[in-house]
């Protein structure tokens, strides 16, 4: 027991010495959340604009790209109008739209064959925020199209009806770029997030009921995105324990490896508790989101976060190297976040996808959290769920311990 505490304290001290990492994990979801809040939180005075699209490719993929602006959050701020190229240029010169997106012929083929290709976006120089959002979301959409192609190459080919040679090869480098994609998004969106937020607040003081609903919709997703990032970041530490030799030293002590592992998980869970706690406070009192059962929500989310951490640690332990471990966990985050409602809420996803997504660990936990917020989760159900999570954690710890004793600590 004393050693458990010692391990927790030791890890918390070490974390405190690396505040940048903490900021990064929590900052990314906050930034994305901020962007979405920026898009939704305002009323009529909020940003909105018209995007002209000159689609010369006329394929399913180019339609998909255009369609991205007509769905979910972006549809609220951006109105898409399909135009001919000539007309588009004329109207953007006349300042009648925020941007003109030109998709030249050959776009679809290039994507499917993973060849470099340019689509261009003409921005209205007189506007700042909306063209910025268009540009950033565009690169996000383009990136995800690219990843979709890489990950689900075959089905995509079937849809489009072409047959490239090496579509289902997933090279290492691709998987690596998946894990950095989020960083890039945040990097790119930063200039539009921070100064304009202040500008916008002066133009739309308060915010109306509708705005709160949107925030309420995205808020739980943001929490889980932060948890996923934290779980991945924290899980890397097991490699540091190994390379520093401290893991081996622990095995040579009379303590149990399991105690050490649980201590690490608890330290991570405590950080999550703080982050989620601050998030809840901010959500409830700064953004005024209507949330019920905050203490229950805090406990539940922390347990769920600990489970995600235990899962990530297990993945790290079964990887052959630190690099592979980080690629694997990084690559796991992307589909988990997308599918499990941690990026876009389930309500904004197609029903069939949402129903699949609810079976991911984070998606399942998010569903429960939403019930807690709505005041609809009976205490007994919550207790049962916590017991289930605890059981899963025990199993993960047991597997991790075996792996550490078996091979991980030695080579």
């Amino acid at each position, binding site marked *: 027991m004393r*050693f458990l505490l010692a391990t927790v304290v030791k890890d918390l001290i*070490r974390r405190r*010495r*690396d505040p940048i990492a903490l900021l990064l994990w929590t900052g990314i979801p906050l930034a994305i959340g901020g962007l979405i809040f920026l898009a939704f939180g305002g009323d009529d005075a909020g940003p909105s604009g018209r995007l002209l699209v000159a689609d010369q490719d006329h394929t399913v993929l180019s339609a998909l790209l255009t369609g991205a602006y007509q769905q979910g959050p972006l549809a609220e701020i951006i109105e898409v109008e399909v135009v001919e190229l000539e007309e588009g240029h004329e109207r953007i010169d006349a300042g009648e739209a925020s941007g003109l997106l030109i998709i030249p012929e050959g776009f679809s083929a290039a994507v499917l064959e993973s060849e470099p290709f340019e689509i261009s976006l003409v921005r209205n120089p007189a506007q700042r925020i909306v063209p910025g959002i268009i540009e950033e979301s565009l690169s996000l959409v383009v990136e995800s199209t690219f990843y979709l192609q890489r990950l689900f190459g075959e089905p995509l080919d079937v849809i489009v009806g072409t047959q490239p040679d090496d579509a289902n090869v997933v090279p290492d480098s691709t998987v690596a770029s998946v894990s950095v994609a989020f960083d890039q998004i945040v990097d790119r969106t930063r200039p539009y997030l921070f100064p304009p937020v202040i500008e916008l607040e002066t133009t739309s003081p308060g915010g109306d009921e509708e705005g709160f609903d949107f925030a309420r919709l995205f808020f739980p997703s943001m929490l889980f995105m932060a948890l996923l990032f934290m779980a991945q970041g924290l899980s890397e530490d097991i490699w540091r324990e190994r390379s*520093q030799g*401290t893991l081996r*030293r622990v095995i*040579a*002590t*009379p303590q149990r490896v399991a105690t050490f592992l649980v201590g690490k998980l608890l330290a991570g869970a405590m950080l999550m508790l703080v982050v989620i706690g601050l998030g809840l406070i901010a959500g409830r009192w700064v953004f005024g989101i209507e949330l019920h059962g905050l203490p229950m929500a805090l406990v539940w989310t922390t347990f769920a976060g600990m489970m995600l951490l235990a899962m990530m640690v297990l993945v790290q332990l079964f990887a052959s190297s630190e690099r592979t471990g980080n690629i694997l966990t990084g690559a796991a985050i992307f589909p988990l976040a997308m599918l499990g409602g941690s990026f876009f809420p389930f309500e904004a996803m197609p029903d069939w996808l949402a129903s699949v997504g609810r079976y991911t660990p984070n998606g399942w936990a998010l569903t429960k959290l939403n019930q807690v917020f709505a005041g609809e989760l009976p205490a007994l159900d919550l207790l049962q769920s916590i017991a289930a999570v605890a059981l899963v954690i025990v199993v993960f710890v047991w597997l991790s311990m075996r792996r550490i004793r078996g091979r991980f600590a030695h080579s």
Partner: protein
Amino acid sequence: MIEVAQLRKEYGDLVAVGGVSFTAETGAIFGLLGPNGAGKTTTIGCISGLLEPTAGTVRVRGHDVVREGTRAKASLGVVPQEIALYEDLSAGENVRFWGQAYGLGGSKLRARMTDVLEITGLLDRADDRVDQFSGGMKRRLNFACGIVHEPQVLLLDEPTVGVDPQSRVRLLDLVREQANQGVCVLYTTHYMEEAQSMCDRLAIIDHGHIIAQGSLEELQAQMGERDLVRVSGSFDENDLRRVFSRDEDVEVVTVDDAQATLSVRQASSKLPTLLAALTRADSEVRDITVSQPSLESLFIKLTGKELRE
């Protein structure tokens, strides 16, 4: 006390330790001397419970390390060959954590922390992070973390590798001090001088086997009155062996084209005869050195190779 009997450790086809037996007594330093890859770290790993032996038994103060692991480990202190510290914690925080790992707490822990940091000369750097330390300081802290709980049995795996001369002297004094206080110390090294000056008893290990064992005097007696004569030049192996085959006082240990190593009784008085014999064997002699019996000459005699390769 450490009792190792027929210890064997295999990694697949590779036999890292092949049936090693020795006993290290309380209040003394037992040395395990051998070149890199001899199996020293593997042996230490089996004793500390880090590795599971393929066969054989290890007892620490009477407790079998496999069956009574927790009890055996509780009396062990381990100073690993690779530095094992939290780089992002301070020296004091490291010592505290490893003390806690052995069940220390409260004022006892605080007192021990001050003690070990003091004797390793790190007390004034207790609050500094380890990643700002020099190699020698890390080695000393590595040692401090291994003895914070006052273990009765101490395993030291090449603790002076890569250490500046000052830290080295300090460390060796500390090790001696531990033995004087009644600790059973197992000390591995590939430095012959260190083994010779530090250890009360020694085992020489090569390719996972102990090839000689005993006190320093016993080992030197095995070497006999013989000196080691190294000759460089050019040689014909067959001729050389033929020339000395009848001479009881000379034994050919190794020969290749450019170097011959001979084990010679009272070499200094035999040098003229030796040179004459070498000429008879059509050898060309460029350089000749004579060394007194030592662990090194014993090692060469037993294995036919130099210790430091």
